[in-house]
């Protein structure tokens, strides 16, 4: 057996240990990314062999919570893929406006950049005051950051450009104020957002939604877990509700494919069938 094969066993054992000790289940995550992150964590801790990490994670909760941060490195930006937000403005908002109130679930919101992007779109389209946005993530640390809504000022230029490409009707600077080297998102944008801990691996549906927004989360799951998450979204959506996935994720090979029709294939926006 090669070192390479042995390391594969070691990662299996590590994930099993985490599951049995802490209840977090990463066994159904896309493995190549988990492998990378375990290796990055090892080198940050100057640990040589993956096996050596197992007893430390089992006996040291602090070590575990640091490792979980590595497993869920939030990587997102405001208005990532601007055309998606443009499609939401043009193809989704008008239908959502026909409801007296709108409930939106942003699953896997990480550090929150995209939930504020969505809030800005809703505000500019006159829908925000009737909306309730549930922004969830399993990573409590990321949720805290999302709730604070403070982002490095050096990213504002990029965010502003994407805001404009996404069809922004105002000026992006209206939505934050500068503080030292940071941009703090306006409180008004937060008032309809509820940040909550939710784990797509283990938790259940918590309400009826008109729109489920979950981008670049499913690529980190294996097929089985992808189907579980998609089933949750489908059970939670009203008939005629919308689902928006990442631009490289799709329903085509999933178990729920037949339950949706495409609204905008490029933007990966689907609508749950009415019939």
């Amino acid at each position, binding site marked *: 057996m*090669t*070192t*390479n094969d042995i*390391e*594969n066993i070691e990662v299996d054992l590590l994930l099993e240990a985490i599951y049995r000790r802490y209840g977090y289940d990463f066994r159904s995550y*896309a*493995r*190549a*990314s988990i*492998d*990378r*992150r375990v290796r990055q964590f090892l080198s940050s801790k100057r640990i040589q062999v993956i096996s050596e990490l197992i007893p430390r994670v089992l006996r040291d909760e602090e070590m575990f919570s640091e490792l979980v941060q590595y497993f869920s*490195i939030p*990587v*997102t930006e405001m208005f990532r893929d601007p055309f998606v937000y443009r499609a939401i403005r043009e193809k989704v908002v008008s239908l959502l406006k026909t409801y007296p109130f709108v409930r939106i679930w942003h699953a896997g919101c990480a550090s929150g950049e995209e939930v504020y992007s969505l809030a800005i779109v809703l505000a500019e389209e006159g829908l925000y005051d009737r909306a309730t946005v549930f922004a969830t993530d399993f990573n409590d640390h990321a949720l805290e950051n999302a709730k604070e809504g403070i982002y490095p000022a050096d990213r504002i230029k990029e965010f502003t450009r994407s805001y404009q490409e996404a069809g922004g009707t105002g000026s992006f600077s209206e939505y934050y104020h500068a503080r030292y080297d940071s941009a703090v998102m306006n409180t008004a944008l937060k008032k309809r957002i509820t940040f909550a801990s939710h784990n797509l691996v283990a938790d259940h549906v918590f309400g009826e939604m008109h729109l489920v927004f979950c981008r*670049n989360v*499913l*690529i*980190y799951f*294996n*097929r089985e877990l*992808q189907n579980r998450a998609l089933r949750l979204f489908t059970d939670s959506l009203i008939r005629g509700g919308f689902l928006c996935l*990442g631009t*490289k*994720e799709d329903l085509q*090979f999933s178990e729920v494919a037949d339950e949706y029709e495409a609204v905008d294939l490029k933007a990966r926006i689907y609508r749950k069938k009415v019939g």
Partner: protein
Amino acid sequence: MRIVPAKRLTDALSPPANELQECPYAAVVVGGSAGGMEALSILLAPLPADYPLSVLVAQHLHKSDDEYFARHLDARVSLHVTEARDKEAAEPGRVYVAPADYHLLVERGGTLALSIDPKVNWARPSIDVLFESAARAWADALIGVILSGANEDGAQGMRLIRDLGGRAIAQDPSTAEYAVMPQAAISIARLDIVLPPEAIGDLLVKIALGKMKIHNRLESGNMENNR
């Protein structure tokens, strides 16, 4: 395995004692950056549509690429070229290109995976990310090729490919529009098969016919990780 001291291409190739019945390799991974696109189309040109290996490409692209690169390449070579899709199985005779702004990884078992993890070597897709995961998935059944580029992405990946028993080829820096990338791989991964893109293409065809194995003569320099 017989180690042949190789000074020229013909030395790097060796017909095995009992001629091989089938190709010992499953996949080729190719990495490129500035100047890599042109080299890549030259390299892929001689590969026939029924080429028995999968070809995976990480080429640094602007994030506005919008599948242009894959379509452009598809129009120019015999193999069918597409953007890699998440959870798709890598099939022989196909070229999979990492989408702009996503890393492409390979799962053990040969399934493709995408991620939006932070940039590596200022790049997404990163060549190292593809090469390192492919090395773990395919071990000694993998061939890595590094082409023109202006940074050092891919050098660590090439080293891991060699450490895990795969084979590694660099574009001859003197033929590369930007020599930094192949040069870095040559020195960090101690590569000794260094060829112009046309010859790399020809070599990949010969290997696939099962008549040849390639040998990297120099040790990768990191034997503790070796089999």
